[in-house]
């Protein structure tokens, strides 16, 4: 059947692009002899910071999720929706927001010096972990909140009828749920932090805060030691693959989750102490997540006047890359939106963009100048990185459309084109819009593979912001970051809304 051959071609392309660069890397690496002493430290730091970030994110998420699960208040729906925002927030924007709060001139340090206390530095290992918690606390909260809301209301009613106290509630109902969800959440966040590049690039660095991904970049960019970069890429690949497989084995049915905007009635939490505690946790989470975003916006406004031609040009390049990778990602995802296709798409998440970038760099170097290929390669890698998420969104809907309408279409003898244009695409509009919005925003904000290839004259907007930060032009950087934030959120909103209008 034609549909199947498209699926095979799409899966083959994923495999080729995931494995081809790796083969190139392995071939170029020529053994592991070329590791430097700093590389082992990078490995240790990578594992340690990922474990610490995951533990902190999950540990803080448990009380926040419990508070959100059992309280109703004005703005709860908005706050839960905002928990999804860091996913599409450009890393460089979040980093600027965190610097505004925790940096040397930030709110926290000004308060500390006012009290005569020593100041904190956001740069280094704890800055990396702080940024990871900022990004992953919302993810962990959403996962655990989903677990809490999945406890059947009948059981809570029974518990209330038996007048179970908080400790018994925890032991009987909540602990079994947490024992299932917490390892999943920990594993997912561990995997995400394992491939951390942009955060380590901006806040880390130095011998004590370099991840393997950052070490690959440094070996390529500064030492131009392809052999060592290749060896590091193999190390990163082994790390990501093994941790990814563990996470996959632990993962249950937790997806993007629908219906998080309801609170379940709880009779056990109706005590003043519990109320104060829950309010404190919700307040902490809201402040921690919102303050950096508010400051990025406020600080960015004055910088908007400094948006020069180079910033606007890089914004144009970023838009083009984002739109092209969205189109490519959807073209890729449509034939793969099946159970087996989703597994093929996972290759994109298990393998780090930097590894693919390094491999493609090695492959294309004899034929073309890497800087010429910076944007196409970024576009390709972004599409591939977003593919697992797009498939996660599209697959359930595509399968139910097939289950419901395939027989009628076959019995009418609809052609493949009519099936695609008249039935599948119109019915997939909502998830397509959502997936396109997510892909566009992710690609818009990506600061990864572009750093390997680009020179400042041909960079994307996130890389441009990073360059402005590096040259201490903070006001211009903040203005450009606000533009980047607006473009990322705007793209997401436009696509997502496009899928909903008249649907």
């Amino acid at each position, binding site marked *: 059947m034609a549909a199947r051959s498209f699926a095979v071609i799409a899966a083959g392309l994923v495999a080729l692009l995931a494995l081809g660069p790796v083969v190139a890397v392995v071939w170029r690496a020529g053994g592991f002899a070329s590791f430097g002493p700093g590389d082992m430290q990078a490995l240790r730091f990578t594992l340690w910071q990922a474990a610490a970030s995951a533990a902190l994110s999950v540990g803080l998420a448990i009380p926040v999720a419990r508070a959100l699960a059992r309280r109703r208040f004005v703005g709860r729906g908005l706050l839960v929706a905002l928990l999804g925002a860091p996913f599409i927030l450009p890393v460089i924007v979040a980093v600027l927001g965190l610097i505004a709060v925790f940096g040397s001139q930030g709110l926290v340090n000004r308060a500390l010096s006012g009290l005569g206390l020593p100041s904190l530095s956001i740069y280094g290992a704890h800055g990396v972990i702080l940024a990871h918690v900022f990004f992953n606390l919302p993810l962990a909260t959403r996962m655990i909140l989903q677990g809490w809301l999945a406890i059947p209301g009948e059981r809570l009613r029974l518990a209330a009828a038996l007048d179970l106290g908080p400790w018994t509630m925890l032991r009987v109902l909540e602990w079994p749920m947490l024992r299932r969800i917490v390892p999943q959440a920990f594993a997912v966040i561990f995997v995400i932090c394992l491939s951390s590049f942009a955060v380590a690039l901006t806040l880390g660095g130095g011998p004590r805060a370099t991840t393997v991904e950052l070490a690959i970049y440094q070996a390529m960019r500064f030492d131009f030691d392809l052999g060592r970069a290749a060896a590091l890429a193999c190390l990163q690949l082994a790390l990501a693959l093994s941790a990814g497989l563990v996470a996959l084995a632990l993962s249950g049915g937790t997806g993007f989750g629908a219906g998080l905007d309801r609170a379940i009635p709880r009779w056990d939490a109706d005590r003043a102490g519990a109320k104060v505690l829950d309010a404190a946790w919700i307040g902490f989470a809201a402040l921690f997540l919102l303050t950096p975003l508010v400051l990025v916006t406020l600080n960015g406004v004055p910088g908007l006047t400094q948006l020069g031609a180079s910033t606007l040009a890089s914004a144009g390049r970023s838009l083009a890359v984002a739109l092209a990778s969205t189109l490519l990602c959807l073209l890729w995802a449509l034939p793969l939106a099946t159970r087996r296709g989703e597994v093929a798409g996972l290759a994109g998440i298990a393998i780090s963009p930097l590894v693919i970038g390094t491999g493609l760099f090695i492959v294309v170097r004899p034929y073309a100048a890497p800087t010429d290929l910076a944007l196409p390669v970024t576009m390709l890698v972004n599409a591939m990185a977003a593919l697992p998420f797009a498939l996660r969104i599209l697959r359930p809907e595509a399968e139910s459309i097939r289950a*419901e*309408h395939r*027989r*009628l279409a*076959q*019995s*009418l*003898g*609809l*052609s493949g*084109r*009519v099936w695609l*244009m*008249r*039935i599948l695409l*119109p*019915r997939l509009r909502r998830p397509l819009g959502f997936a396109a919005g997510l892909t566009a925003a992710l690609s818009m904000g990506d600061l990864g593979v572009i750093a390997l290839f680009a020179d400042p004259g041909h960079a994307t907007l996130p890389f441009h912001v990073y360059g402005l930060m590096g040259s201490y032009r903070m006001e211009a950087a903040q203005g450009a970051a606000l533009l980047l934030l607006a473009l990322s959120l705007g793209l997401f909103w436009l696509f997502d809304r496009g899928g909903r209008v008249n649907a």
Partner: protein
Amino acid sequence: MLEVRGVTHGAGAFRLEADLTLPRAGRVAVIGPSGAGKSTLLDLIAGFRAPDAGRILWDGSDLTDQPPGRRPVATLFQDNNLFPHLSVNENLALALRPRGGRLDADQRTARSEALERVSLPEMGARRPGDLSGGQQSRAALARVLLQRRPVMLLDEPFAALGPALKREMLDLVRDVGDTLDALVLVVTHDPRDAQGFAAQTVLVDEGRVHPPVATETLFSDPPPALRAYLGD
């Protein structure tokens, strides 16, 4: 005529064996307990399942390897008979032009006649969700009418409708079948449907398809399998 020659499908508890010949036109009920293989038999004839052995022929030509859309068969499913995001008119247009394109004047006339025939004139612009259950069934029948295929398969199509409405719809099916001079196969689990609708009845029991028998005869002297199913 429709010949099902030595067809087997599935294994173990899901094995179905069928060997029967049905006339070129007329109404046949397919009755039997759930899980006996009634729907599997219809799927084999419609082409949604392929037999492990045996052939299926229509007027002597072999259908076994034909895809569903190429068979002389129109199916009325239990549900999902219309695409919910398309209007009734658009749904009917797809039945006439399954490879896309605009309807010509004759086809448009045929479409409005079909809608009139099922008592849904002026309803073409509506989407299936804006129609009642009975109206949806009527629109689906208009679709079958336009497909003009000599075999009509109905797999408990009106199970969701009340008794009076169901009888009305079966009358309409009889009407459409007579117009097309088609062979109409209706799967049902209600003996009264079979008695009121079909001259002949095929009993499917424990994976065996029995040859068609006159409905009157079958119910006046039911074989043990049917007796067990009817519960008397």
